[in-house]
């Protein structure tokens, strides 16, 4: 920056950072501490952050309480990846169409997609339930995958469109001069140069799909075998007496894979979100 920070400014900044992180990370820290407590120490008054006999035993005992934990994690990943693939297959061609061609109804279609952004899935849950029932999709992965993809398509189209608009048209024109067909051009010329943009859309779609699996699972799925992580643990949570240490151990174990994925990709996520969001 232009001028250096004075010492009290630095103190203020770091104090602010610490406060913000305390708020954003406290639940994780507390969940970890609870997962280390023996059950009788959890239900003890007065509250203490550190308690006696802390151990990792909940991470062992949770496997008998939540034996399907690996399945839930797999389901969550499977559903989120499928949502992402299905959504991308719809988003990429559609975004290309609205960014490169003028055709009858284009603005209306764009406006419709913009409007769909504001409709939450919970509002449409009644007909969606009837639709899933009629299509015989209740209690299948597809009942969670198809709506998940549909609700991420509009946002994805706008993100991807702004990326396509920044790619010079000369690239396609050169390909046409060389005699390439339009589908071939899209596949072989445009897609490779759009890979960073596609990555951003893929990652944000994946994270949203992973984070928002509760409603569709709660409404369309009654079979434990297909439950994503949130739903799998919700049953555990809803019991008469919650085994908090095991629930927290299972929650932390369950979110570890997605946190690791995030750590590996965080550079792309932050860079992608920031570049994609500026020019909307």
């Amino acid at each position: 920056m232009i001028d250096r920070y004075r010492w009290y400014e630095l103190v203020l900044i770091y104090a602010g950072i610490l406060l913000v992180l305390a708020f954003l990370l406290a639940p994780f820290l507390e969940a970890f501490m609870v997962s280390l407590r023996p059950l009788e120490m959890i239900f003890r008054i007065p509250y203490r952050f550190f308690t006696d006999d802390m151990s990792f035993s909940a991470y062992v005992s949770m496997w008998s309480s939540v034996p399907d934990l690996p399945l839930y994690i797999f389901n969550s990943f499977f559903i989120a990846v499928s949502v992402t693939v299905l959504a991308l297959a719809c988003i990429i061609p559609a975004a290309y169409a609205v960014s490169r061609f003028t055709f009858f109804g284009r603005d209306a279609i764009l406006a419709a997609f913009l409007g769909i952004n504001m409709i939450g899935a919970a509002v449409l849950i009644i007909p969606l339930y009837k639709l899933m029932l009629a299509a015989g999709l209740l209690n299948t992965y597809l009942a969670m995958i198809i709506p998940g993809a549909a609700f991420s398509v509009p946002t994805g189209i706008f993100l991807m469109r702004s990326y396509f608009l920044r790619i010079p048209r000369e690239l396609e024109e050169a390909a046409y001069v060389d005699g390439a067909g339009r589908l071939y051009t899209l596949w072989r010329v445009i897609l490779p140069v759009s890979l960073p943009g596609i990555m951003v859309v893929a990652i944000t779609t994946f994270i949203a799909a992973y984070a928002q699996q509760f409603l569709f699972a709660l409404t369309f799925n009654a079979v434990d075998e297909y439950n994503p992580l949130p739903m799998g643990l919700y049953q555990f949570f809803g019991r008469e007496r919650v085994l908090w240490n095991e629930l927290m151990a299972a929650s932390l174990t369950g979110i570890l894979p997605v946190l690791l994925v995030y750590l590996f990709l965080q550079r792309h996520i932050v860079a992608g979100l920031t570049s994609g969001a500026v020019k909307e």
Partner: protein
Amino acid sequence: MTRRRDAFPYLLLLPALALTVAIVAWPLAETFRLSFTDASMKPVTTYVGLANYTKIFRSGFEDIIGRTLLWASLSVALKILLGLLVAVLLNAAVPGRALFRILVMPPWIVPIAIGVFMWSWMYNGQFGMISGVLQRVGLISEPFEFMAYGTSAFIATIVTDVWIGVPLVSLYFLAAMQGISKELYEAAWVDGAGRFYRFRRVTLPLLLPSIATMALLSAIWTFNSFDIIWILTEGGPRGATTTMIIDTYKTAISRFRYGEGAARAVLILLFLSAFTSVYVYLLLRLTRKGGTHD
């Protein structure tokens, strides 16, 4: 490169349109239709005109609307204010900034429901951290059960909603801040403007369109927020956290009153459209006045 009556762009749009029509457009139309019927678990349904709508307003629905508006506006205001603060902190050129940017994101990354389980423990009256810490510092003398009282449950659900929403809002504002040209700051600096003055006179005005955009998006998401309230309170205690979405879900799915639920859903959509229209109008005025970067 477009020929007249060219089918190619339509072909490209086909998958997206097919999915959207099946999962959003048709259910939307069906919701409108159902809202005029007495649809439920019975095999036969009849049209009942506006009966569902009049019934809603005779059952004290104004309270739910008011509560929803209060819930959403408090939550959005907090998300925007806190998001701005976090963005400013994330933007400060201090050592450790890269790590800070990584550490703010987890509430957004993890499944919402899992984050809510954690908060549910934090709010636990007898053994939870918040009540415990408040007792430790002497602010309260007895354990406090947050979910047992309307006001505290209401606030608790907002806090959790803000916690989940802040990371994305901050990152969006950070992006907008980085889009502001450095020369403007340098010019202001040469003129002797201090850091706070520069924020107020350069950053904030140029950020206004982004703030407006985020406020609207955030309002829409918050209005549609389901998981947090459902898991924390299921709308209780005694309806204190029943927002329009929760009420709709309860009516339609838990009580199988599809028609009445659909009428509630239609009212939500009307609210959201009103929001969006006001926003588009304001945004057009803002951009026409100039001072925006796009």
